[in-house]
């Protein structure tokens, strides 16, 4: 009978034997499940953070900073410069005017609801065009702020995260009082972590005279980017750099994303090493407890490679069980879990939800499979290499 039949038969016995060693098998499965859960859990933080940072960025939107500035914080633009930018070719027009908004960006301290400790929240001054640029923005409670008044609207993420950001409450920051008149969402995007007001009110409140930090614009199409950028970078009246919003946010989230992902990978690697030894141990025990059985099969004429295969499959079955349980556990425990963290690149808190994406689940399963593969390989090779005459002598 052919090789495949031998594999199927030998694997069948092995899996039946597996059930007779429930304790050790369960320990391995749980060990691998734990590692995968932690890996997927930690990576879901990075994933969720990046998603929050990039979800609302559209490819036809641009951000214009002073040349040499890496973030809104560092940038500065005069009123004249923002006018030149607003007149550049390719800016889209919406129902209420041009889709362009000169904005300024200050950071205020507010206590977190959870811990009571202060953390940074961006307070953004925007022009009317801001709502034409970010069309996914939606007022879900209350109303929009009125131009010229000390009114703010609060992102849904910030409203949950920080104390005092409730509809109708007045927020005192320094010398200024701000009335919360609305709560908005932005499809889970970064804007949800911010507080918005009229740029014309924010400028005097923070003694910014007539200056801004950044211009947001939406272009007629993603292809209009090059012409828009070229027009501004060659214009002697302004000294700016032009970025696609998608690139800007990806870059802004890279430090935190890389750190979380790096940390997650490190933790998972260390734990994975432990799980690997657990799997190796289980499989060595599984194989050595069956040394004579395997030798008997080989003595009867079964070939060595089906034995190797069956041990590998056995180990992979344990690994996939562990991986499945770990992934499912991570999904139910972490997916959608809301949190906020500091984005060091903008010195402000970003509210986001852990994101256990299908690709992360796949990563978790692959990791488990790797542990199973290595954990089974050495015992399998040992089982196949051991001469039959020697193996038959073992008890």
């Amino acid at each position, binding site marked *: *009978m052919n090789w495949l*039949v*031998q594999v199927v*038969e030998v694997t069948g*016995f092995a899996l*039946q*034997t597996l059930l*007779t060693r429930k304790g050790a098998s369960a320990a391995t499965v749980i060990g691998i499940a734990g590692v995968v859960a932690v890996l997927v859990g930690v990576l879901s933080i990075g994933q969720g953070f990046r998603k929050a940072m990039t979800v609302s960025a559209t490819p036809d939107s641009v951000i214009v900073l002073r040349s040499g500035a890496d973030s809104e914080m560092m940038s500065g633009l005069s009123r004249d410069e923002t006018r030149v930018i607003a007149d550049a070719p390719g800016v889209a027009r919406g129902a209420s005017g041009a889709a362009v908004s000169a904005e300024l960006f200050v950071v205020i301290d507010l206590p977190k609801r959870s811990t009571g400790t202060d953390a940074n929240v961006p307070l953004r001054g925007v022009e009317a065009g801001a709502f034409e640029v970010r069309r996914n923005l939606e007022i879900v409670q209350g109303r929009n702020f009125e131009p010229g008044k000390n009114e703010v609207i609060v992102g849904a993420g910030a409203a949950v995260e920080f104390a005092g950001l409730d509809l109708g409450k007045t927020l005192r920051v320094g010398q200024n009082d701000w009335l919360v008149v609305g709560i908005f969402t932005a499809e889970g995007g970064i804007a949800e972590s911010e507080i918005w007001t009229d740029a014309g009110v924010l400028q005097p409140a923070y003694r910014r005279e007539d200056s801004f930090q950044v211009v947001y614009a939406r272009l007629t199409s993603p292809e209009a980017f090059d012409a828009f950028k070229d027009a501004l970078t060659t214009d002697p009246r302004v000294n700016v750099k032009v970025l696609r919003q998608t690139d800007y946010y990806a870059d802004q989230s890279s430090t935190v994303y890389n750190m979380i992902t790096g940390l997650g990978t490190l933790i998972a690697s260390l734990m994975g090493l432990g799980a690997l030894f657990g799997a190796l141990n289980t499989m060595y025990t599984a194989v050595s407890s069956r040394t*004579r*059985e395997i030798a*008997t*099969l*080989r*003595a*009867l*004429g*079964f*070939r*060595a490679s089906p034995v190797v295969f069956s041990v590998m499959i056995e180990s992979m079955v344990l690994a996939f069980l562990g991986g499945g349980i770990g992934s499912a556990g991570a999904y139910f425990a972490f997916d959608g879990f809301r949190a906020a963290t500091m984005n060091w690149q903008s010195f402000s808190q970003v509210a986001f939800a852990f994101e256990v994406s299908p690709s992360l689940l796949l990563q978790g399963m692959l990791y488990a499979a790797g542990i199973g593969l290595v954990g089974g390989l050495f015992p399998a090779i040992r089982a196949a290499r051991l*001469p*039959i*005459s020697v193996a*038959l*002598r073992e008890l």
Partner: protein
Amino acid sequence: MSNDVLVHVRNVEKRFRRGSEDIHVLSGLSLEVPRGEFLALMGPSGSGKTTLLNLIGGLDRPTGGSVEIEGERIDGFSDRKLAAWRARHVGLVFQMYNLLPVLTAERNVDLPLLLTHLSRQERRRHVEAALAVVGLSHRARHFPRQMSGGEQQRVGIARAIVTDPTLLLCDEPTGDLDRKAGDEILDLLQVLNREQGKTIVMVTHDPHASARASRTVHLNKGQLSTEAVP
């Protein structure tokens, strides 16, 4: 007639390396087993009986000399070829039965047939016949742990004969059994030898067992003799 010699072991030598030490277990040993013989192989513990049986059964290769079975030199076969050869030509009976605990008696007996091209029905018929020969048809669905030692060994014998091999190799088949169960096994081997013409080589410690054989040889210090060395 010389072409009726089934097993022809010529001048075999078997050395094992243990660390820096060379252990000579068999040194220039020769043995002929005629077709249809029931040969008992005796000798003190550690004298190399199992080693010799492994060479005849293609479970191991000699470090010198040749092993010829039915006119075929098996000592030069590759592992893969040896495995296929064993499946076709030899039935093995072990002292500890070596049954797979997770399989019923009939599935244990079915194992060697998985390596053949027989259909499921043909396999079933062979398994039933083999279990009938050893008198265990009624225990077909039982697991090894539900059977006595003697019954387990009879399942082991059924497994060894299910492919109808010419050569039956038994390594201390009664070594783990009481006298009564051992006698039943020896009866069975004698029947297989006399009525089905199986050639049997049986390693044993027990003079009571060797008395059932048609010939007895003694292994001592790597050599064979017809007389036990005191």
